């Protein structure tokens, strides 16, 4: 019975995940796309929970669904309706056909390669203990085995923050000089 419930939750989350991803790609208004991406991230967090990734699921909702998406929505609101795609003229061009073919090729490659090379190894998950994926376990790994990755991540975030500030202030200078000329 519990297993059946897990399957039901998995299918609901997977369907929500795919549907919201398609919505992100197909909405014309980026505001709706960003809202759909929040749904995509939330349903992915459900899948992470089914895989015993509790800490990652919480981080996904807090960092992605919270901070990153708020930043997206601020920028979309700041830029207003100039962010919408202008409608394509005419029918599907060679670009659209090529893009769909490339997407299908990626999908086929992934599935064929995984099926060919990994088919035999994928069926037996290891047993895990109760603490798998808990903040305690993740924190211990981060501060022991993966300390270098932890520190490099902090440097990457610092550089990105400085880059964001520099881009923003540079744009403000350009804007004020443009106003002075006008």
């Amino acid at each position, binding site marked *: 019975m519990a297993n059946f419930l*897990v399957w039901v939750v998995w299918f609901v989350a997977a369907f929500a995940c795919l549907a919201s991803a398609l919505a992100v790609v197909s909405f014309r208004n980026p505001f709706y796309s960003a809202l759909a991406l929040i749904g995509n991230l939330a349903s992915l967090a459900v899948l992470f929970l089914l895989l015993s990734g509790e800490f990652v699921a919480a*981080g996904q909702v807090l960092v992605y669904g919270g901070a990153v998406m708020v930043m997206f929505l601020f920028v979309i609101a700041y*830029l207003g309706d*100039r962010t919408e795609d202008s409608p394509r003229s005419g029918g599907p061009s060679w670009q659209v056909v090529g*893009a769909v073919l490339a997407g299908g090729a990626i*999908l086929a490659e992934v599935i064929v390669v995984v099926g060919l090379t990994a088919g035999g190894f994928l069926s037996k998950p290891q047993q895990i203990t109760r603490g798998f994926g808990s903040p305690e376990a993740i924190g211990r790994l981060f501060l022991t085995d993966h300390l270098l990755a932890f520190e490099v991540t902090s440097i990457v975030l610092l550089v990105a923050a400085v*880059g964001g500030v520099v881009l923003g202030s540079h*744009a403000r200078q350009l804007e004020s000089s443009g106003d002075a000329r006008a």
Partner: protein
Amino acid sequence: MRGPDIQWYVVLSALLFTTGALGVLLRRSPLIILLSVEIMLNSANLLLIAFSRLHGREDGQIFAISVMAVAASEVVVGLGLIVALGRRHIELDVDKLRTLRG
């Protein structure tokens, strides 16, 4: 492991990655391209966590958290560029952006 086997996660992740790649290839608004890149990164995250569960080790989850940090940095820089374009009143269309002069 209750519920679906790892193959289901692999197929779901491949479908999500393809959807994101199609978004990057088809859309022309840089904002939606950034959102599609997020979908692609998240499909990779799903696979990392699924294989982490399969092997019974948390290293994949560590990797996924690092990917989330890199994705957040990428969004900061990407949105900074888009705001800079918007302030200079340049049309937000990646087909029409040909030079990156300062």
